[in-house]
Structure formats: C-alpha cells, structure tokens
C-alpha cells in the first residue's frame, strides 16, 4: 500500500466539487415517492367509489393514515441515515411502527371473536391478494428512490437501513393502493394491508444491504 502522504496527494488530485446531500432534497424525494405511487394508482386503477363520492370511512382513514405516518417516519429515518453522525438516534420510527401494529392486532382480536371462517371471509382474500401484490409492486418505486439516496450517502448500518427502507416502501405502496381498494373492514386492512409492509420490510432487509454497503 502507498504511504498516507501519497494517498492524500492522489485524493487531492481527484477532488471535484460535490453536490451536498441536503435534508430538503431527501424530503422532496419522499414526497416524490408518495406522489408517484398515488399517481400510478389513480391513473391505472382509479379512485375508490366512496372517496370519489366524498364519503370518508373512519376505518379507511385510520388504516391509511397509520400507514402513511409510519411510512413518513421510516423514510425520514432513511434520509437521516444517509448522512451519518455519531449521536444520531434512528429509533424514532419504532413508535410509529408500534402505533400501526394496532391494525393487525385489532384484526386478530376481531378474528378470534368472530371465528376463523367468518374472519377469513371478512378479510376478502381474493382482493387481499391483489392488494398484497399491487402494494408490494408499488413499493418498488419508493424503495429504488431511497436506495439511490443511501448509495449516495454513507449509511453505517446497512442491515437496519435496508429494513427501514422496506418498511417505508411497503407503507407508501399500500397507502397508494388504499386509495383504490374499496374494502373498509378491519380484517382486510389489518391482515392484507399490513402484510404488504411486512413483506416489503423482509425483502428490504434481505436485498438492500448488499446494494448500499460501502
């Protein structure tokens, strides 16, 4: 290996002005990630009838709102992780995750009370599978945007960054799908919509670290 002085001389020769990674850029990236998914759903699948008619179901509002807030918390954490600093805490998103866990828990409790057959019927499995597939596919776009951000940056915990990116991607994907999905039953939202987030989080944890390691 060359001496440190030689290395420094080479690095100085290679220096070019850099475009700094600013927090605002990261926030715009998040807005783009949400906007893209919503645009794809509205243009290809259309708005759900009750929303189009101006009726807002409370379960829909709570479900979609929880996923959007969790997605925002996770995505902001990813943006922060791109710009490392000793003394930064990356656990804030966990509170939003704990809050969103109420949805599958409510589905579980409701399902136990109703019995397995009724619970499965109420979850609308055929449509649920569509939500799972479309939501996960839509999660790819935000995932790619956030991975691009992390590749420019210096995430010091690639495994955790991959997991949180997956959570954000899944939340944004299912938030977009929820604007089309006409089901308001907690069984459907708590099971199938939550499953999108879990699936994307697992995929993010498995795949993304090798893309962002430096």
């Amino acid at each position: 290996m060359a001496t440190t002085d030689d290395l420094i001389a080479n690095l100085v020769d290679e220096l070019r002005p850099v475009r700094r990674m600013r927090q605002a850029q990261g926030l715009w990236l998040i807005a783009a990630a949400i906007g893209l998914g919503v645009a794809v759903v509205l243009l290809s699948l259309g708005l759900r009838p009750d929303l189009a008619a101006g009726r807002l179901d409370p379960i829909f509002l709570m479900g979609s709102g929880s996923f959007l807030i969790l997605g925002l918390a996770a995505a902001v954490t990813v943006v922060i992780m791109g710009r490392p600093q000793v003394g930064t805490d990356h656990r804030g998103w966990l509170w939003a995750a704990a809050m969103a866990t109420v949805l599958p828990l409510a589905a579980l409790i409701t399902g136990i009370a109703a019995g397995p057959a009724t619970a499965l019927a109420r979850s609308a499995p055929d449509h649920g599978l569509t939500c799972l597939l479309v939501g996960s596919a839509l999660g790819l776009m935000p995932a790619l945007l956030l991975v691009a951000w992390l590749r420019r940056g210096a995430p010091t915990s690639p495994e955790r960054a991959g997991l949180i990116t997956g959570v954000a991607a899944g939340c944004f994907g299912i938030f977009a799908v929820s604007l089309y999905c006409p089901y308001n039953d907690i069984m459907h939202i708590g099971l199938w919509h939550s499953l999108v987030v879990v699936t994307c989080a697992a995929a993010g944890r498995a795949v993304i670290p090798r893309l962002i390691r430096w």
Partner: protein
Amino acid sequence: MIADEATLARLMAMAQNGDRQAYAALLAACSQWLMRFYRRRVAPHSCDDLVQETLMSLHQKLASYDPERPFLPWLAAIARYRWVDHLRKLYRADETGFDSEPIAASEEPAIAARISLAQLFQYLSPAQARAIELVKIEGLSVAQAAVACGQSESLVKVNIHRGLKKLAALIEKD
C-alpha cells in the same frame, strides 16, 4: 497538532466546493486524528491501512457531510464503520504491542470521549468485549483467547460474533 472542530468543518466545506488546498490540509489533519482515534483499538501494524481506508471512504462520501452540522461526529461515524468492518474481516493479527497514549486525545476531550471507539465497548458485555479485544485486536488465536479469558473456544467465537453484530448496530450511538 490536531486542528479544532471549527477549522476542520470549515476546511471540509471548502473541500466540498472543490478547494484542493483546503482538502489537502483537511486530509492531513484527519489522518493524524484518525491515527489517534484508532490507536489501541487496532493492532499497530494495521493502523496505517485502516487510516488510509478511512480517508478513501471520506473521499467517496464527501457529499454526505452537511456543513451546518459538526464535522468530527461525521468523521467518527465513518471511522467507526471502517473499524467494525476491519474487525469483521480480521481473523488474526501478528503483533500485540500497543502504544500507551490515550485514545482519541484531542483539543475537544468531551467530544473525543463521546465519539471514541472505547465508548462503543461499554455497550458490550464484558465477555464480548474481552473476546473481541483478545482475538480481533491483540491477534490471539481463538484457542489462546479461550485460555486467557477462561471461556471455552466455542463461547469465545459466539461472543465475538454477537459482539461484532452489536457494534455494527451501534456505530452512530454516543
């Protein structure tokens, strides 16, 4: 003499704008700072290599520094990441002697203590810290470390594995 936080931050901001003179001064100061930062947490013969690897990482990740934030905690995060990566790759070092100078001594002792490598070790269990120090830093074999710390060989391996995993998750913790 190691430059102070404000000077380093100013040099870094100038370097991000393409100022080569400032960049040369910054890298020279960083190499000294890193040498102190790593001392006693890396086998001496590996210290130069690790400092150079960290300088290359700094070069590749210049854009990730925000001039509105302190510089040393950013540099320390990069340095800790390279250090944990180094420990993971390392199976055996040849030398065991260490410099007795204090770790990460600088003009900002409070900052230095907060971002030092020693600070990370306090989050490990004593058995994990000891196993990593003996095998990954002092360069003993697993068998020698087992004798030295009174653990079985398999326990030493488990402690190293779990300790490194924990360190990797704690890089930005102060």
